[in-house]
Every structure is written in structure tokens, then in C-alpha cells.
């Protein structure tokens, strides 16, 4: 059934959007945008979709238009990356606070200064507190599959929340890889028709969006928003199991690789996980019990599940492709929070790698595993946080 193609990550996500045929896409048509929306806009121009595309003057306006279109009652998607996502920041909170199920592809790129548009996770990590669900993708296949699942997750009646689908800039977005596309009809049936709960354009039932809520109730609205986030992981798993029935491809909250009996392990997001898995294999060949965990659902963060998966390790290294300057890397902070309640927990170190598109090479993963072997043997951590692959 599947169509095999050789495409970039951008093309793969644009193809998913073509199959889904959203009502409205708003986008800013020049840098920092990627070719993803350009690909999609040619589907619009060629009549392959009925989507109304709104080209605006900035990414802040792009998200504002998405918010308006979603409040009006439409199924809405967009794409952004790096500084574009940073410029959307204010409106991200509006989208989630208004519970609008917008789906956005985020091509992960660094933030200025110095000016750099290559791949790292600074953009999406900066938006991690914005109330959006975040799904991360190792390769174009996962970005395509996650985009299709994202609509079902976002629009699920238990939650109704916006979703970001993240993939690495250039490494995945602009590199060609093999992908198995699904046929149009199964995808259309999978996402089904969208029906807004409170469409603003339902003129028989007038309503208002975006009221001023002061000290008497704002705190309660945020409490309710937290509550709805606690329901997300079940929805993600339900949608993943339906997706598996359709596609044969299995997704969970995170992926584990040779982790069950592992003594040392690496936690790493997105494309670098592929490189690190090869290194896991080479350590296994030498009889070292190495394993890997690749987060998929990063927001909300399912702490208990992560703790369970990592608790038997003696030592774990969390690799972050972004930094919280003056703090630890964002993934490390979450993993440590997950592990802290355990009576017996692995020693943990944080490595910052690959900023601004710096290559992550097998030798980097090998050095980390060698250090983890040492930590597992001695129980001693020399440096908690350290940059790797850096010129001294």
C-alpha cells in the first residue's frame, strides 16, 4: 500500500499537510521560514488542497492569524523555525490558553546572536513552557507520522490543545531520505473531519474569546490548563495505537533502544539519536551494556514513565542540543526531576552538543559512553555539565 519516496523532511511534512488538507494555514513567506510552507503553498496554488493560505508580515502575525482562524472554527496548521518561533512567543501562549488545536511543524534551529540558522533545539526548548504539546522526531519518517498523529492529538475532545512537531533543521529538514508515505484515503479517515467545539462563526450562538481575567480567576484558569496537560499522555498513546493499526509503525511516549538490561545509557533527542544508536551497537559488540532513550513527548513530560525506563541504569548521560545558560540543559533538568523521587537512581551527567549545527559524530557518543563506564565503575561524577565537541 505504501508509497516509497526519497524526500527531504520539509517535503515529507508538506505532504502530510496536503493529505490532511487543513482549512487555513498562515505563514510568513521568507527567512526564517523553511521551504516547508513553500512546498505546501504550491499544493494550494495547484489546487491540490482547499486550504486558504494567509501570507503575513511576520511570524507573530502568522500565529495571530492561526489563533483567529482556529477560534473561528477552522482546522489550522502552520510551520516555523528558529527566530520565527521566538517571534511567535507571545501568541503561543494565546493559542494554548485559548485551547486552540493548531498544529505547527517546527524545524529546529538555533537563535541569534551570533547569527546562525543551523540545526539545534534552542527554539523549541525556549517554547517548552508555552502550554503546547511537543512531539520530537528523529527523521523525516517520524516527522511525517507525528504530523498526522498531531491533528488527532490536538483535536482530541479530552484535551483540545496546540501541538508542535519538531525535527532537526537541515540535518532532517533539508536532507533527502527514504520515506514510506501512507495513501491519501487512510490518512483522511484517520484524521477525520474536524468540528470545533466553540466556533466563533456559529452566529446563532454568539460567544467571546480572549476576555480579561484578573486576580480573581487567572490562577484558576492556569490550574485548569495544567489539568488538561495531565490528560495528554493517554491521548498520545491512544492515537499512537490507532496509527500503528493503520501504518504498522509503532510510537510511544519515547523510544528505548537496547535499554532493558543496560547499565549505562544516553538520553538524546531527534536526529543525533540515530548516530548514538550505532554507537550503542558498537559498545554492545564489545560486551558493554549500553542503551539509549529518545524522548518523543517532551511536553507534557511523563516523569514516571521516564523514571521507570531509566531506573535500572548505573549511569546516564543526558545530551542537550540547547542550553539554559547558567543552568543545566533542558532535557537534563527534566530527567533529573524524573529520577529524583527514586530511592536508587543512576548517576547523571549533562552534555551540551551540536549547537548552531555543529556535527554530532559517533566519536562524541563513544566518548560519552566511555565516561559513563568510568562513572558506573567508580560511582563518581567529575563534572555535571560540560560542552562536548567544542574546540578548546
Amino acid at each position: 500500500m505504501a508509497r516509497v519516496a526519497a524526500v527531504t523532511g520539509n517535503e515529507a511534512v508538506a505532504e502530510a499537510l496536503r493529505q490532511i488538507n487543513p482549512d487555513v494555514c498562515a505563514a510568513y513567506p521568507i527567512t526564517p521560514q523553511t521551504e516547508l510552507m513553500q512546498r505546501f503553498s504550491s499544493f494550494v496554488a495547484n489546487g491540490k488542497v482547499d486550504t486558504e493560505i494567509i501570507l503575513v508580515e511576520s511570524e507573530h502575525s502568522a500565529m495571530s492569524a492561526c489563533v483567529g482562524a482556529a477560534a473561528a472554527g477552522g482546522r489550522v496548521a502552520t510551520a516555523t523555525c528558529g527566530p520565527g518561533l521566538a517571534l511567535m512567543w507571545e501568541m503561543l501562549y494565546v493559542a494554548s490558553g485559548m485551547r486552540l488545536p493548531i498544529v505547527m511543524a517546527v524545524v529546529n534551529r538555533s537563535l541569534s546572536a551570533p547569527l546562525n540558522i543551523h540545526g539545534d533545539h534552542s527554539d523549541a526548548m525556549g517554547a517548552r513552557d508555552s502550554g503546547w504539546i511537543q512531539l520530537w522526531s528523529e527523521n523525516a519518517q517520524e516527522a511525517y507520522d507525528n504530523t498526522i498523529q498531531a491533528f488527532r492529538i490536538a483535536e482530541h475532545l479530552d484535551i483540545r490543545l496546540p501541538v508542535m512537531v519538531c525535527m532537526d533543521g537541515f540535518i532532517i529538514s533539508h536532507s533527502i531520505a527514504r520515506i514510506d508515505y501512507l495513501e491519501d484515503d487512510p490518512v483522511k479517515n484517520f484524521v477525520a473531519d474536524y468540528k470545533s467545539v466553540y466556533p466563533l462563526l456559529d452566529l446563532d450562538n454568539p460567544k467571546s474569546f480572549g476576555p480579561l481575567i484578573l486576580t480573581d480567576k487567572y490562577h484558576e484558569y492556569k490550574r485548569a490548563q495544567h489539568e488538561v496537560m495531565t490528560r495528554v499522555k493517554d491521548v498520545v498513546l491512544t492515537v499512537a495505537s490507532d496509527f500503528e493499526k493503520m501504518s504498522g509503525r509503532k510510537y510511544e511516549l519515547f523510544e528505548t533502544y537496547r535499554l532493558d538490561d543496560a547499565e549505562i545509557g544516553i538520553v538524546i533527542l531527534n536526529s543525533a539519536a540515530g548516530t548514538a544508536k550505532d554507537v550503542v551497537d558498537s559498545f554492545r559488540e564489545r560486551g558493554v551494556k549500553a542503551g539509549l532513550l529518545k524522548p518523543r513527548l517532551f511536553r507534557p513530560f511523563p516523569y514516571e514513565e521516564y523514571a521507570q525506563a531509566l531506573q535500572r541504569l548505573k549511569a546516564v548521560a543526558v545530551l542537550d542540543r540547547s542550553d539554559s545558560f547558567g543552568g543545566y540543559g533542558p532535557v537534563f533538568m527534566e530527567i533529573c526531576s524524573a529520577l529524583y523521587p527514586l530511592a536508587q537512581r543512576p548517576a547523571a551527567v549533562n552534555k551540551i552538543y551540536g549547537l548552531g549545527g555543529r556535527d554530532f559524530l559517533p566519536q562524541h557518543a563513544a566518548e560519552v559512553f566511555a565516561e559513563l563506564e568510568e562513572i558506573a565503575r567508580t560511582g563518581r561524577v567529575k563534572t555535571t555539565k560540560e560542552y562536548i565537541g567544542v574546540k578548546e
Partner: protein
Amino acid sequence: MKPEGWRDLTPGAVILDAGNAREVKTGTWRTVDKPVFKEEHCSNCMLCWLFCPDMAVIVKDGKMVGFDYEYCKGCGICAFECPGKKGQKAIFMEEEKK
């Protein structure tokens, strides 16, 4: 009555009850002055009704008839805008005796 808790709120703070601004009595925090209506100078131009940022101007059968002070915040816009008749305004602001 138990105050509304976080479980009772509509998702995304959507207001489903159209026109519920009438439940908010702006007049409870009116500033020092309140508008006073002098019918004899009124030309029924409706500018006060149009400009009032709340719903404090009462209109009956196309005629301005006075103020609903429950919704009047004392901003004075109506008095400022009122053209009145023959150079005499039909609305003036008067200090309120508390």
C-alpha cells in the same frame, strides 16, 4: 454561594453567555463626577449613546431619557461629546455627594 472553582470554568476562557457584560456593574467604581441630563437642551442626536463606553445612556422610543448610573463610570465622554441645542449642552458633570 461557593465561588466558582477551576473545575467550573469553560475551556480556554470562552464566554458562552452572550451579553453578560450587563452583570458587571461599572457604576460601583464611578469616579468623583457623574453626568446629569438636562432634557430641555437635548436634540436627541444620540451621540452620548454612541460614545458611552458602557451602557449607561437610556434611550426610549428614539429619545434620550437619562442615565442608568449602575453602568456609568463617570468618564465624562458623553458630556464632552454632547452638542446640545443652541450652544447649551444637555449633559454636564456634577460632583457626586457620597
